């Protein structure tokens, strides 16, 4: 990652001073910044694919890639060369323009998300004032790409996958966006850099752990991976939306998916776990990149672990979980945080704008919000327990019991 903002602020005047047209100098500076932000995820993905395969292998008691290069590190390059030299088949009757555009759009949407992620106090693609809205908007393009791929393939399995995208991925965007309102409310800004700056004193996960959990679960579903991988459920849809794809286009879908998982970890850390905040980050800004990497790899590994250990849910369970659990809880959470913030303000416990860095000044507010979150979590868990108990009672009703097929021979069973 490079100093994009600095490049525009320093490179442009430097070029202009050497007799270049000012507008052109500005454009070149922007282009250099853009190229750096675009290259970062594409270079990182080469390593991510290796991590992912190694992790899956270890969970399944295999060795994973270990032939090409040291520890199989060069396996991804070998795979990329293989995919590029494969014949590319477009099925007859496919909608060609959409069919070809879909994998490119899938990767594009993930790359665009990296534009607003702050990597350190000065390393950021562009610190948009509407950063949060930007990545919600850009993130939903990935959903669209999967829908385009499924629809244009002229294959019923692919089309079923596309239908499930409408149902599943689109639905999980609702709790995701609802949980994002909380950090925006706490920071009073939609700019990602501002949100991170506001967490210098206290991470937002302490102020609202509920929102962080909801965000993590729904982003896990957004990537379309286990336990929410119904759009490509192999046992039902063969491969789902990407069944007709081959060669590099097939590879692009997976490159996009692998980057998406890391992007989600980065966003979670940026919004709730303090982003680049850490000791001495103001003196040595590059340390911020290190802190962000360490924090987000924890959540990256966590989502890899979920993917490899949790069984797939049924589609009715997935939709019920979203609409009847995550969305109501997210709505209650917004009301709770809004109410408690006003209570904190009324009591005069809110930290003043110049006290954001101060841990102690943030403490009273954090305690009140944290306890409020815990209380709501306890109530929600109790309600879930009651619902579960009631549904089990219905199952245990005598009339609904299934008769045993075979009775032990020679034993008298009273009827």
């Amino acid at each position, binding site marked *: 990652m490079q100093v994009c903002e600095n490049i525009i602020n320093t490179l442009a005047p430097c070029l202009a001073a050497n007799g270049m047209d000012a507008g052109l100098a500005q454009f070149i500076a922007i282009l250099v910044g853009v190229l750096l932000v675009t290259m970062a995820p594409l270079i990182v993905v080469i390593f991510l694919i290796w991590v992912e395969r190694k992790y899956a292998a270890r969970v399944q008691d295999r060795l994973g890639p270990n032939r090409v290069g040291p520890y199989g590190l060069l396996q991804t390059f070998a795979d990329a060369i293989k995919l590029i030299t494969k014949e590319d*088949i477009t099925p007859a009757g496919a909608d060609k323009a959409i069919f070809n555009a879909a994998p490119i759009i899938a990767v594009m949407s993930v790359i665009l998300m990296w534009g607003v992620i702050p990597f350190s106090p000065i390393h950021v693609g562009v610190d948009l004032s509407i950063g949060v809205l930007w990545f919600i908007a850009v993130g939903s393009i990935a959903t669209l790409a999967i829908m385009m791929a499924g629809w244009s393939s002229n294959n019923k399995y692919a089309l079923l996958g596309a239908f499930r995208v409408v149902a599943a991925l689109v639905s999980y965007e609702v709790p995701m966006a609802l949980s994002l309102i909380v950090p925006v409310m706490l920071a009073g800004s939609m700019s990602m850099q501002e949100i991170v700056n506001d967490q210098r004193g206290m991470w937002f996960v302490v102020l609202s752990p509920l929102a962080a959990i909801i965000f993590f679960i729904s982003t896990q579903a957004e990537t379309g991976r286990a336990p929410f991988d119904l759009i490509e459920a192999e046992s039902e849809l063969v491969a789902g939306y990407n069944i007709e794809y081959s060669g590099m286009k097939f590879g*692009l879908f997976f490159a996009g998916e692998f980057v998406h998982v890391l992007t989600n970890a980065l966003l979670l850390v940026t919004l709730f776990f303090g982003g680049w905040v850490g000791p001495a980050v103001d003196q040595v800004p590059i340390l911020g990149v290190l802190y962000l990497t360490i924090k987000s790899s924890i959540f990256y590994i966590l989502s890899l672990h979920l993917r490899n250990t949790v069984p797939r849910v049924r*589609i009715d369970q997935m939709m019920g979980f979203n609409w009847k659990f995550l969305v109501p809880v997210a709505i209650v959470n917004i009301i709770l945080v809004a109410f408690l913030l006003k209570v904190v303000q009324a009591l005069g416990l809110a930290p003043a704008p110049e006290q954001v860095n101060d841990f102690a000044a943030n403490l009273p507010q954090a305690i009140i919000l944290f306890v409020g979150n815990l209380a709501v979590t306890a109530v929600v868990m109790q309600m879930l327990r009651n619902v579960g108990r009631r549904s089990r009672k219905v199952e245990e009703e005598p009339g609904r019991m299934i008769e045993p097929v075979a009775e032990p021979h020679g034993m008298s069973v009273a009827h």
Partner: protein
Amino acid sequence: MNLLNEWAFIGVFIAVAWVFPALPVVFSAFVRPRKPNAIKMQTYECGVETVGDTWVQFKVQYYIYGLVFLVFDVEMVFLFPWAMAYNQLNFFAFGAGLLFIFLLADALIYAWKKNALEWA
């Protein structure tokens, strides 16, 4: 960086983000073999041939979820400005926001009671 530069960055960024993923596909067009034939191009090659048209009308449930999502997505966008200015607003803003969120919750309850959220 001023506002114009920010959006110039975004404009260039979107263009470059289109070009980069397209590069390997374009590059592979020069090195990959190209020997199409009728059987290879069949839908679901190597499988049983599909019967009938692909683009059929299917379960309405998917459409209903799409509609419910639309209601929420549009209303949520209006919540963001409220959330952004929340710290500077007085207690009345909490009431106003609450009213709006109740409308949102009302839509959810309506859909729930209409069994739109049941996977039937």
